């Protein structure tokens, strides 16, 4: 079969994935025409492009997808005409392409009201990465930015302008924001919250024309006689289906646009399908991605010969975060059903609004609106969709939980197997249960396996509830025991050590464990003890617990020698110190290499040489670099505003401050940090556990990034922080991780397994909802104050120095350690070379 898909947006891509996964699809010859210069990307998260995500980050095409046989992607090649008789599509560059089946996934275009002046330079729409690039370029020379349209996408665009540092206005035709999803009270509360963030909202404004401004580039004149001056305008006043291709091919289209489709997503020509925002089903156009995905699956299955596949409408409930404000709308949020009754709860002090719409007989939930706190979204959605009977007192669903009373939520056990838990990725409760049965017993594994909660994340808490419930039902004890010696997780053990004021492994194992311990629990307990009490790790009672790297304060290499990485805070080093490193390396014959984190690594030190080398280094003012520890490794930095033409803050000074503050603190795993002096991000901070990026007004704090084997882009935790707030937030973040992380769990996996994800971290760190902020800061300050350079301490202690020799009864070195020369330096001898050398020396 020859299949042509016109359009490679999120829905078109999803259709391809469903299609090729089926036998019919795998054998087909597929051509994809895409007018944009890049393959499908996540338009839902377009705004994150401005908070540092790159076009690559937004890409949604699985690796190698278009390299599969039979798959042909033509970028920047738009379809221009369909010849239905001859079954051919004409494209801009490719001439005529024959098809057996054709899918139109052309999406929509932004509606721009027909105003005089709408095409002036500095007027934009908000749809593609190219649009965003143009907006970003224009913002550089602008002071004021205005979004026309106060709907979902308009508010996203407003956030983008705010992020670009513009004075931001939103102009809405209707009397309230988000007309479709909210009611008057909800809209008012949202407006108040958004205005508190510095965005000015103008409602009931009908723009008459756009002309030259006095203080700004443009002047927007409104019908009521008022006006607004602005440098940049973004139109986001709704979408219109892109149906011209279908229209000129004579396919049936709706009165107000949209390619009419049947329940199999077929147009009036049975060989042509339409999916997504260009399609009109039962008189309706869906402007959301989830219904588009459902159409994509139906069309793909139908194309692959599953005649029964049908699209029967989709739920349009939404949950999103607009400028940090949670907003959700479920089902019949406006209460238009006959005899519907409302329950309303408003807390203007906290900025929370919740409304339930229930059936006249009070048996079922029809809809809901949540502003300011949408934690209950998943439960309410399930209640309305399935529908489940309401509890005896429906108001309990929206009233704040009283102290001591557990939330009277929905028991996930009541949900039918077919209930769609994740609507973005069409994951039912049944699919989650199957995955749990197949061995996904952690939240991270379940998300990875089913894709649930990986798009908007709204169903995260519900997914976790299903997981816990299934595990309980299966009698699976949720086991996160450290090892056979401790029936506790690292987090529990941390708590026990802290509360019980336990200061040694012996005390911990006597009270809470059994046996002698092992190489799993000993270093883990040593790390906990260090995080709690910060005693020198080589004290006789701690030394036996340490891995060899911590025991010898250096990094073990394959031949039993060690490498040394002295601390060079932020990677800044004086010429004199650079010379010292060279001299020490030459004196002891060490191999030297620059690391990826702006340090100098000295290799090939035998255990008995370590104290001698460090004596020289300490004398020259060097400190332990902790490359050997589960601790802060390095803070990488760019030169920042001191030297760089583009830098906006002194990234080096901040990196030094941070490195010196957190050096030596022990954590569940190693930690890396970086500070970039501007958005160009030369220090690659978004691949670090803690990444700091300078802005015009301060610092953006990103957390839980990772490079290496499993790269993860860091999440933005907070924006435009001043120096002191930045340090405070890092203090809290680090200690929260140190207290709750599992053994050898980097911040990235910690976050992925944390219920509530980055929003929860933000609540704890930035909003201090647990009320532990001050305590975390005080604990961190204690650790900072009790810092000592481990090498300085070690070489001053003869008892410790005694341990730095290869033989307890001889001063000979290990004869097995043999080096040969390569490129002017040493390297460990290979087995054959070593035998030769050993024979020669004996």
């Amino acid at each position: 079969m020859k299949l042509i898909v016109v359009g490679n947006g999120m829905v078109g891509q999803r259709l391809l994935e469903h299609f090729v996964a089926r036998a019919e699809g795998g054998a087909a010859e597929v051509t994809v025409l895409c007018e944009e210069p890049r393959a499908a990307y996540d338009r839902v998260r377009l705004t994150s492009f401005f908070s540092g995500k790159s076009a690559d980050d937004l890409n949604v095409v699985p690796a190698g997808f278009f390299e599969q046989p039979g798959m042909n992607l033509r970028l920047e090649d738009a379809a221009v005409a369909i010849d239905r008789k001859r079954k051919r599509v004409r494209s801009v560059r490719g001439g005529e392409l024959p098809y057996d089946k054709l899918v139109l996934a052309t999406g929509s275009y932004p509606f721009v009201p027909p105003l005089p002046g709408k095409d002036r330079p500095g007027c934009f729409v908000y749809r593609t990465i190219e649009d965003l690039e143009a907006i970003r370029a224009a913002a550089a020379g602008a002071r004021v930015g205005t979004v026309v349209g106060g709907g979902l996408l308009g508010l996203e665009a407003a956030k983008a302008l705010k992020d670009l540092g513009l004075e931001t206005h939103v102009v809405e035709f209707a009397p309230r924001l988000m007309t479709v999803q909210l009611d008057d009270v909800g809209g008012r509360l949202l407006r108040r919250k958004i205005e508190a963030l510095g965005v000015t909202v103008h409602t009931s404004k009908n723009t008459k024309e756009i002309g030259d401004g006095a203080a700004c580039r443009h002047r927007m004149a409104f019908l009521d006689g008022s006006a607004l001056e602005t440098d940049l305008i973004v139109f986001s006043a709704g979408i219109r289906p892109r149906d011209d291709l279908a229209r000129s091919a004579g396919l049936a289209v709706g009165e107000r646009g949209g390619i009419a489709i049947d329940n199999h997503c077929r147009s009036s020509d049975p060989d042509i399908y339409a999916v997504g925002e260009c399609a009109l089903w039962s008189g309706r156009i869906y402007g959301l991605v989830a219904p588009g995905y459902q159409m994509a699956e139906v069309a793909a299955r139908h194309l692959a010969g599953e005649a029964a596949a049908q699209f029967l409408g989709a739920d349009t409930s939404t949950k999103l975060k607009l400028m940090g404000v949670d907003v959700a709308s479920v089902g019949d949020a406006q209460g238009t059903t006959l005899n519907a009754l409302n329950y309303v709860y408003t807390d203007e002090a906290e900025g929370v609004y919740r409304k339930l719409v229930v059936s006249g007989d009070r048996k079922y939930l029809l809809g809901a609106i949540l502003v300011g706190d949408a934690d209950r979204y998943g439960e309410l959605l399930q209640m309305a969709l399935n529908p489940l009977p309401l509890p005896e007192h429906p108001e309990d669903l929206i009233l704040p939980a009283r102290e001591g009373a557990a939330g009277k939520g929905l028991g996930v056990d009541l949900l039918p197997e077919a209930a769609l838990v994740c609507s973005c990725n069409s994951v039912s409760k049944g699919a989650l249960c199957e995955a749990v049965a197949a061995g996904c017993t952690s939240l991270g594994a379940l998300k990875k396996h089913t894709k649930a909660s990986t798009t908007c994340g709204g169903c995260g808490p519900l997914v976790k509830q299903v997981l816990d419930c299934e595990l309980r039902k299966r009698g699976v004890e949720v086991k996160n025991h450290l090892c056979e010696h401790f029936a506790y997780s690292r987090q529990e053990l941390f708590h026990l050590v802290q509360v019980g004021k336990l200061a040694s492994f012996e005390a911990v194992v006597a009270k809470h464990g059994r046996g002698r311990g092992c190489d799993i629990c000993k270093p883990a307990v040593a790390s906990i003890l260090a995080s709690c009490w910060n005693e020198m790790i080589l004290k006789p009672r701690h030394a036996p617990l340490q891995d060899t790297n911590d025991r010898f304060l250096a990094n073990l290499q394959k031949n039993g020698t060690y490498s040394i990485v002295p601390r060079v805070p932020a990677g800044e080093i004086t010429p004199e110190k650079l010379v010292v490193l060279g001299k020490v390396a030459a004196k002891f014959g060490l191999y030297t290499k620059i690391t990826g984190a702006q340090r100098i690594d000295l290799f090939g030190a035998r255990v008995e040489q370590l104290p001698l080398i460090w004596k020289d280094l300490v004398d020259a003012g060097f400190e332990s670099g902790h490359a050997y520890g589960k601790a802060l490794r390095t803070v990488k930095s760019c030169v920042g505003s001191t030297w760089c033409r583009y830098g906006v803050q002194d990234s080096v000074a901040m990196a030094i401050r941070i490195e010196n503050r957190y050096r030596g603190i022990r954590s569940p795993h190693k930690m890396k940090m970086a500070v970039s002096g501007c958005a160009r991000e030369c220090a690659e901070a978004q691949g670090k556990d803690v990444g700091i990026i300078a802005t015009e007004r301060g610092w953006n704090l990103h957390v839980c990034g990772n490079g290496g084997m499993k790269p993860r882009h860091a999440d933005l935790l907070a924006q435009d922080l001043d120096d002191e707030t930045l340090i405070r937030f890092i203090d809290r973040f680090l200690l929260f991780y140190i207290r709750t992380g599992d053994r050898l769990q980097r911040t990235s996996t910690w976050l992925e397994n944390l219920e509530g994800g980055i929003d929860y971290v933000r609540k704890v760190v930035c909003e201090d909802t647990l009320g532990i902020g001050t305590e975390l800061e005080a604990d961190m300050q204690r650790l900072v104050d009790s810092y000592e350079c481990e090498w300085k301490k070690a070489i001053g202690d003869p008892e410790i120095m005694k341990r730095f020799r290869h033989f307890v009864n001889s001063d000979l070195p290990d004869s097995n350690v043999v080096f040969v020369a390569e490129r002017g330096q040493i390297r460990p001898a290979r087995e054959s070379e070593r035998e030769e050398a050993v024979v020669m020396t004996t």
Partner: protein
Amino acid sequence: MSARPKINTSKSIAVCRLQDIVPNTGVCALVAGRQVAVFRLDDDSVHAIENRDPFSRANVLSRGIVGDLKGELVVASPVFKQHFSLVTGRCQEDPAVRVAVFAAWVDGDTVLVRA
């Protein structure tokens, strides 16, 4: 600690004093040209095995963490973390691999090894 049978015995030598070994850690001793890892436990008993890690071929077993696994006294190789029994020398992860075991005991405060 009593001497074990079946061990290739040649001569015993005093390698160090007991207090030269931090409890629950090991040291490496040179005994008749062989590298021997000698461990002191918290009950002041001592155990000796070959110092060479058969997996990495580095002489480092004395620097491993000592503990018990499945009821057996073990040391974990600091390189790739395999566990070797301090009593039989057998590797728990790969029973086909063994390191040599030597007799070791304490006389007064002197640690003796026969290799």
